[in-house]
C-alpha cells in the first residue's frame, strides 16, 4: 500500500512527539522532579511507529517493549499520552478521553525480559480461535533473545500457524551487555529458520522500511499463513536507564559508534527525505516541531495540576487483587 501524504506527515509527527516526551522524562528524572526509573530510547522511534501506526486494526493485540516505556506505541495506537505522563509523576490523570490501552490490545509490559513471548502466544491463540483475522504484534529487544520463553513461544506459534509478527528491536545492547557477546550469530532474525518461519532484517532507522516489512508480515498473519520474524537494526543512544552507567561491559561505550549512529537519526533522516521529495517544506516541518513542543509543555502543565495518585483508602487494593 502506497502511503498518502497525510500518513507520511503522521509518521514524522509521531516520531517527533515520541522524542520530545522521551526528553521530558529524561529532564524530569535528572532534575529530580520525578522519581522512579526511566528507560529512554531516543533514536529508536522509527521501529514501533513504523510497525504499528498503519498496520494494525483496533482489535489487534500488541506487546510493546520497555524502551521509552512504550510511548511511541501508545501514540501510534491513538491512545492519549495523558495517562502515560501522569503515571510517571505519580499523578492521577482522571478521566482521559479516547481509547484505553486495553481497548487497543495493549495489556502491559513484563517486568521480566522475555515475559512477553508466552503472553503474545496466548493472544495469538485467542486471535486464531476468534476467527476474525486479528493479528498480534510482539516486540522484544535484542537482550530478550537469550530467554527460553522465546524458543517455546516461537516454536508453538509456528506449529499452530498463529497470526503473530515477532519484531526484534535490536539496539545492540542489553543493560551493559553488547549483543555481539550475547548472541552467537550476527542476525537474530536467523533463528526464524529453526521455526520454519519467514524473516527479514530491516534498517530500524528507516520508518518506511519498517512499515513495509511489517505490512507484509501482518498480511500473512491475517491470511492464516502463520508467524514471521522481523529484526530492525537500530542503536541505543543512551544508557539502559537514566542514571545507570552507560557502558559496554565495564568500559564506556564507543563515542565513535554513537557519533556514526547519531548521523543516522531516524527523525532527521525522515525529515530530510520529506523535504527533498517536496512533501513538506522546511517551514511546515518547523511548524510540526513547534506544535509537538507546545503539546508536551501542555502535558507537563496538565500533570502538575493533577492530584497525586493516592486513593482515599486502601480498600481499592482488594478490587485490584481479585475480580468478582
Amino acid at each position: 500500500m502506497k502511503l498518502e501524504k497525510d500518513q507520511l506527515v503522521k509518521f514524522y509527527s509521531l516520531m517527533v512527539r515520541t522524542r520530545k516526551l522521551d526528553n521530558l522524562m529524561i529532564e524530569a528524572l535528572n532534575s529530580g522532579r520525578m522519581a522512579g526509573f526511566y528507560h529512554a530510547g531516543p533514536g529508536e522511534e522509527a521501529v514501533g511507529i513504523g510497525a504499528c501506526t498503519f498496520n494494525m486494526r483496533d482489535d489487534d493485540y500488541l506487546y510493546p517493549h520497555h524502551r521509552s516505556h512504550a510511548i511511541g506505541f501508545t501514540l501510534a495506537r491513538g491512545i492519549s499520552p495523558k495517562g502515560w505522563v501522569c503515571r510517571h509523576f505519580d499523578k492521577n490523570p482522571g478521566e482521559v478521553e479516547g481509547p484505553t490501552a486495553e481497548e487497543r490490545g495493549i495489556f502491559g509490559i513484563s517486568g521480566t525480559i522475555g515475559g512477553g513471548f508466552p503472553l503474545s502466544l496466548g493472544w495469538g491463540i485467542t486471535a486464531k480461535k476468534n476467527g476474525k483475522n486479528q493479528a498480534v504484534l510482539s516486540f522484544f529487544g535484542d537482550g530478550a533473545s537469550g530467554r527460553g520463553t522465546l524458543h517455546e513461544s516461537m516454536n508453538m506459534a509456528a506449529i499452530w500457524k498463529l497470526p503473530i509478527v515477532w519484531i526484534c528491536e535490536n539496539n545492540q545492547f542489553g543493560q551493559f551487555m553488547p549483543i555481539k557477546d550475547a548472541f552467537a550469530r550476527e542476525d537474530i532474525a536467523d533463528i526464524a529458520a529453526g521455526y520454519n518461519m519467514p524473516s527479514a532484517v530491516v534498517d530500524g532507522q528507516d520508518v518506511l522500511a519498517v512499515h513495509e516489512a511489517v505490512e507484509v508480515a501482518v498480511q500473512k498473519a491475517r491470511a492464516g499463513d502463520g508467524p514471521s520474524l522481523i529484526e530492525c537494526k537500530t542503536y541505543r543512544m543512551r544508557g539502559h536507564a537514566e542514571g545507570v552507567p552507560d557502558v559496554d561491559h565495564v568500559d564506556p561505550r564507543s563515542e565513535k559508534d554513537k557519533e556514526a549512529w547519531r548521523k543516522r537519526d531516524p527523525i532527521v533522516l525522515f525529515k530530510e527525505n520529506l523535504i527533498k521529495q517536496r512533501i513538506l517544506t522546511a517551514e511546515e516541518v518547523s511548524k510540526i516541531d513547534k506544535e509537538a513542543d507546545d503539546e508536551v509543555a501542555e502535558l507537563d502543565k496538565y500533570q502538575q495540576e493533577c492530584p497525586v495518585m493516592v486513593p482515599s483508602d486502601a480498600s481499592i487494593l482488594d478490587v485490584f487483587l481479585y475480580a468478582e
Partner: protein
Amino acid sequence: MKEITYVQAIAEALAEELERDEKVFCIGEDIQTGTFGATAGLVKKFGPDRIMDTPISETAIAGAAVGSAMTGYRPVADFMFADFMYIAFDEILCKAAKWRFMHEGTQQIPVVFMAAMGGYLGLGAEHSQSPVSYYMHTPGIKVVVPSTPYDAKGLMKSAIRDNNAVVYLYHKALLGSTGEIPEEEYLVPLGQADIKREGKDVTLVATGMQVQFALNIAEQMKDKVSIEIIDPRSLEPLDIDTIVKSVEKTGRAVVVDEDTSRCGAACEISMQIVEKAFDYLDAPVQRVAAKNYPIPPGAMEKFVLPQPQDIIDAVEAVMG
C-alpha cells in the same frame, strides 16, 4: 447419588464445563491421552482445538493460558506433575497473580493451572512435591486441594468459573479412590471449608491425602479421643472462621500438611489459629508436615513425608 473415582470426577467436571462454555479449553503436554487420566477421552468429544497437546514448554503453556484468559477465554492449563509448574513461575506467580493488580483491576484473568501433586508413590524429589505454599504465599492467586471425588468435581467447576487465576492441585495417591457424588450438577465454592468428621476434643486441619490419613486415625482413636476433621479445601481464600470456630469448641489444634514444614501451609494456618483463638487453646498447636529435606525416592520417602503415626503423636501431644 453415584459412585465415582477421584480422577473420573475431575474428568467429569472438565467435560461439563467444556460443554457449558465454549470459551473453556484445555492446554498442556499429552493431555489428549492424559497422563493421570484427568483429561483422558476429552479430545474425542471436544476435538484437538479445545484439548490442545503442546510440546514440552511449560512457560509457554502457562503464559499462553494467561494471555488467552486476558482476552476472553477460560483456559485450563495442565502441567502433569505439580513439580513442573516451577518452570513457569514467572507466568504463574507474576503474570497470572499480579497483572490484574498491576493494571488496577482493568483485566480479568480466569485461568486454571492444574497438576497432580503429592507423594507416597516413591517417585522421588522432583515428582512427589505438594507445593501449595508458594501459591498460598503469593497474593493474587487462589489455590485449591481436593481430598474426595465430591470436592474434586465441585472445586474444578468453581475454579473454571472463577474470574481469577486458580491453582488446582489434585493428589496422585488419591486418583483411584472412590466416593459418592450427586447425579445432578453441583459446585463446591472456593473458600469454604468442609467438616469431614465432627468431634469435640481436637481440631485436626488437613488437606488432600492427609484428610484420608486423618479419617482413618479418627476412627482408630475414637474410643480415646473425639477428633474433628476440617478440610479447608481451598487454602486461598482460606476459611479460617470455620477452623477457629472448631478450635473454640475443642480447645486443641493439630494442623497437617504434606508440603515442606518450613513456611508451609500448616505454619500459616497454625499462626492464624494462634492469632485468632489463643485464649481458647488448652495446649500449643501441633504441626505435622514434610520434614525439611527434599523427598527421597522409594521407601526412604517415609523419613520425610508425614506419616499416620506422626499425626497420632501430635494428637496425643495436644491431649497431654
